């Protein structure tokens, strides 16, 4: 299932052609919109941009994810694939996880590139690469799992492009929170922020949506 | 002191509730007129 989606991606290259540039564009626009003032934070002196870099990175990721998720279901809805999948007797859990996996892979690729870009543009330090890596994986998984579930709810609709963000963004609030704080700790090694606690939150969130998504896809796939 | 906030709060909530309640009743009437009397209530 995931393989199919990824193969479609390789042949059409929308991610690299559209979503990745979109993500970059957002980072750049943040860079333009935010004033270059300097802050004193604890012992460090940082520019405002550098200080909010974690938040901006994850916001850019979230917005890019919305695009990727919208696409994931546009692909299916187009030829009534969902019906075909159901009738082929494929386990709904498999459909869910497969889709999620494909989108996750796409997003992680986007994030790696965006992240490198962010380091360059925002000029941020990196205190704890392991924490950063773990955060990226878990947060992306959470975003994709929850996002796939909610994108399915809006699938096949003209209003999809506005509905998916409305459904998904409030749900992802804890992910945004956890990812941003964990990234802060990973980058700046902030004394007040326990990065690993937040990564645990991200893990819990991801696990929760694995469970909920696999359960919910059963009824959702029954489209008569 | 702070009466302004209290008055504002009670007015907004009061008016809001009233508006919603009235809209429920009026919509109910408008819809019920379009349905034959036998089918107006949920029977099952």
């Amino acid at each position, binding site marked *: 299932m995931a393989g199919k989606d990824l193969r479609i991606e390789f042949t059409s290259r929308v991610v690299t052609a559209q979503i990745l540039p979109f993500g970059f564009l957002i980072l750049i626009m943040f860079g333009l919109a935010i004033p270059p003032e300097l802050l004193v934070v604890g012992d460090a002196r940082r520019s405002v941009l550098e200080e909010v870099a974690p938040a901006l990175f994850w916001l850019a990721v979230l917005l890019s994810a919305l695009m990727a998720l919208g696409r994931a279901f546009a692909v299916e809805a187009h030829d009534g694939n969902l019906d075909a999948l159901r009738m082929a007797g494929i386990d709904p859990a498999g459909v869910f996880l497969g889709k999620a996996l494909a989108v996750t892979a796409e997003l992680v690729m986007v994030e790696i590139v965006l992240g490198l870009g962010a380091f360059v543009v925002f000029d941020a330090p990196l205190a704890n690469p392991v924490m950063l890596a773990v955060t990226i994986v878990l947060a992306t998984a959470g975003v994709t799992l929850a996002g796939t579930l909610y994108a399915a709810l809006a699938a096949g609709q003209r209003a999809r492009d506005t509905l998916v963000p409305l459904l998904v963004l409030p749900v992802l609030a*804890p992910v945004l929170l956890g990812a941003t704080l964990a990234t802060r700790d990973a980058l700046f090694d902030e004394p007040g922020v326990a990065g690993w606690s937040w990564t645990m939150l991200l893990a819990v969130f991801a696990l929760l949506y694995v469970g909920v998504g696999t359960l*919910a896809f059963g009824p959702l796939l029954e489209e008569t | 002191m702070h009466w302004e906030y209290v008055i504002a709060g009670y007015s907004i909530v009061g008016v809001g509730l009233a508006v919603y309640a009235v809209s429920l009743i009026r919509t109910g009437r408008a819809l019920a007129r379009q349905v*034959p009397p036998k089918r107006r209530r949920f029977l099952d």
Partner: protein
Amino acid sequence: MTISDSSSGAGTEAQDSAPQNAAPDGASTGDSTPANTGSRGTRRLGVAALLATAALLLFGLVLSPPEASQAEAVRLFYLHLPSVAVAYLGFFITMVASIIYLRKGSLFWDLVAGSAAEIGVVFSAFMLISGSLWGRPTWGVYWVWDPRLTSTTVMVVMYIGYLAVRRLELPPEVRSRRAAVLGIVSFLNVIVVRYSVKWWRGVHQGETVGLDTQMDGLQLFSFFVGLVAFMLIFAWMLIHRFRISWLRHEIDEQALAQALAERRAETNATGLLGRKN
């Protein structure tokens, strides 16, 4: 059949000028169902709600004393907490009704879920408004990003999304099923967001702004009156909103049946070759 009632106001408007519709048709009951969503039950409920509301105004605005640190602002609390309770109750009902709907497929529970969610959103608006108006004189700000407020706002937006899904143009069962899934997941999500932010708030500066005031007996009682009033209002609204959903469903069925009948009549008239006679 109608109870005439002299008190005015939203709760009893149902019988004020209800154009009692036409002749009862031949069938059984002998009562004609009026052309509105009111009934004996809802009128009594409405009266009760109005009385309770009057009591709330009396206790809340007049009888109960101003509080030590918050002065008169505490009176907003008699609106705020009941709003919170009713909003959460509404969304909880939506979740339960959605679960039952997914298991049984019965229209009744689907309509209940939708109605409860809409009323929940309405009361959420009151909750947020009364909350900010209370917060301004008390803490000095209209808003603060603490775990409780954040998770509550997230909840409201999610149920607005739920209402949007209910309006999607899809075959009814498909739409209802999707909405049901969303109704369940949204409430679970509220719990997750609530507790996740609370468990981990210790590691981040933002703390919950709490209530460190004691409420005295009369204030507590006023709050209780508010709760009762809002619950009665909620019940009244839920019944009416449910009936509206039912009527809408009936109208759609009628339209569908009519379209089918027309189509059938047309094919009969035009015969096999599709040309009009």
